[in-house]
């Protein structure tokens, strides 16, 4: 896939890091402020998609990225399941909030909710990147 002009590339390089850290903030503070795993994950994937669309990609490079995105996606949903099953093992039911509640409005509070947010965030961001990579690769296949 070909990239865009020099102006677009420079601007996207400047903005991508900002967008990425905004997404991480939305995920990590999901239990305190509006947002959460899903919204933050989509924003993180937006940063990567911006870089891919603006700079263009090699066919070989993006194959490695595809493997990595698949791995991260599985890791995210695995984390989510593990948290649910630990609740089942230590307590009485699925998705038991087995960690301490902490003080409200604190960064480390609300038990398992921030961990679940992180898992969902990893899963969603990798999944959306994976979908875009799939579309890029299939277009290359047809052009050949």
């Amino acid at each position, binding site marked *: 896939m070909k990239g865009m002009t020099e102006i677009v590339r420079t601007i996207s390089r400047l903005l991508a890091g900002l967008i990425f850290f905004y997404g991480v903030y*939305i995920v990590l503070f*999901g*239990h*305190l*402020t*509006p*947002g*959460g*795993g*899903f*919204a933050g994950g*989509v*924003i993180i*994937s*937006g940063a990567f*998609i911006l870089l891919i*669309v603006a700079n263009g990609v090699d066919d070989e490079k993006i194959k490695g990225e595809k493997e990595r995105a698949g791995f991260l*996606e*599985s890791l*995210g*949903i695995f984390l*989510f*399941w593990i948290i*649910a099953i630990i609740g089942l093992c230590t307590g009485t039911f*699925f*998705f038991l*909030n087995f960690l301490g*509640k*902490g*003080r*409200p*409005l604190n960064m480390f*509070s*609300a*038990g*398992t*909710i921030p961990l*679940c*947010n992180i898992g*969902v965030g990893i*899963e*969603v961001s990798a*999944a*959306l990147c*994976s*979908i*875009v990579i*799939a*579309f890029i*690769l*299939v*277009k290359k*296949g047809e052009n050949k």
Partner: protein
Amino acid sequence: MFIILILLMILMITGAIVAIQSKDLLSAVISMGIVGFGLTLVFLILQAPDLAIVQIVVETLTLIILIAAILKTTMKECKVKKSAVVIYSGIATVVLLIVLLFILGDTFERLPDFGCSTLRMSEYYLEQGLKKTGAANLVASVILDFRAYDTLGEATVLFTAVMGIWAVLRRKGRKK
């Protein structure tokens, strides 16, 4: 506030109609964007910032993907012959509208007032949410603690969708 909501609704409905009717696919996609971003404003006015964030990000991504697809393929809509199908679908639409209005006219009178929910479960969440989960964001406490099954299903649906996309869009087909 109510007037702004109604104006936004009219704008969104106009955008949807333009998206259906326009011959140019690019303007159709942009009018679909009016619907999505109008929905974002509606969520903001109704004080649901969580939904507004998700809506604006997903809408932007969808628009980018659709516009990229249109730029690479075709700008024009496929020509459809106007035949008996159009007449039949028109008649079916009118009949369905009459039936729907007949049923809805009865229902609208029994609806609770705007903004006054009759569900009692939400009151419990509002009162006990912070005490039981410790999360300051009540939406997070509902979707990841009280109703975590739903979120698990949602994440699994996304996972399965990606697997389906990779299965359909693979480069080599199976040899016969």
